[in-house]
């Protein structure tokens, strides 16, 4: 009777997400030939490159799959927090020169306007400003 050179592992999708299975398969690529099929459940076929140790490979695969499944579920739970941390880190890493450039542009704009132009109405005397407000109230 010929010894089987490969091992087939059937995995229920109820317990093992597809992503975790694929990650586990990638970890076993170096020493095995791996092929995935979709039957009723997920079927993983492992053929070791070097003869021997089929049961050991299957047990190692199943163990690693549990680890990756746990990592997957944790990463799903922490996704929002991780994105927030990365966004905050990127925002804080912006150079300070960017803020200085904005200030310079404002000053240049103000200078270009000339001393006679008064876009913010600073040069209007207080009495004149209040007179305008009194007129508005009377109306």
């Amino acid at each position, binding site marked *: 009777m010929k010894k089987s050179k490969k091992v087939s592992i059937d995995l229920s999708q109820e317990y093992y997400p597809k992503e975790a*299975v*694929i990650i586990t398969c*990638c970890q076993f*690529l170096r020493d095995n*030939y791996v*092929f*995935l099929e979709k039957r009723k459940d997920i079927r993983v076929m492992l053929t070791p490159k070097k003869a021997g140790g089929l049961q050991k490979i299957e047990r190692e695969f199943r163990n690693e799959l549990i680890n990756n499944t746990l990592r997957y579920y944790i990463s799903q739970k922490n996704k929002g927090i991780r994105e927030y941390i990365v966004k905050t880190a990127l925002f804080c890493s912006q150079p300070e020169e960017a803020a200085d450039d904005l200030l310079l542009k404002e000053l240049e704009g103000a200078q270009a306007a000339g001393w006679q132009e008064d876009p913010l109405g600073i040069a209007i005397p207080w009495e004149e400003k209040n007179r305008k407000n009194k007129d508005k109230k009377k109306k």
Partner: protein
Amino acid sequence: MSIMEIRFDNFFYAAPAIKKAIREYNGLADFSCKEKNRCTVVTVGNIRERGLVSLFKQEFSNCVLSMMGVLK
């Protein structure tokens, strides 16, 4: 001249990964690709190296899986 068909289930194997693997193996054989029954069927023919024929399907499948890891 042997021709082999490899069926990659679209549930696991992404089309970009398969195409990238075909590009990697371009010089070793002739490839054609089609979609059939939610699978990508890759037809391989004219394998240049005779010594590779027996292991070609397995090595190519491994390459596709490794490309999946890269793409993710």
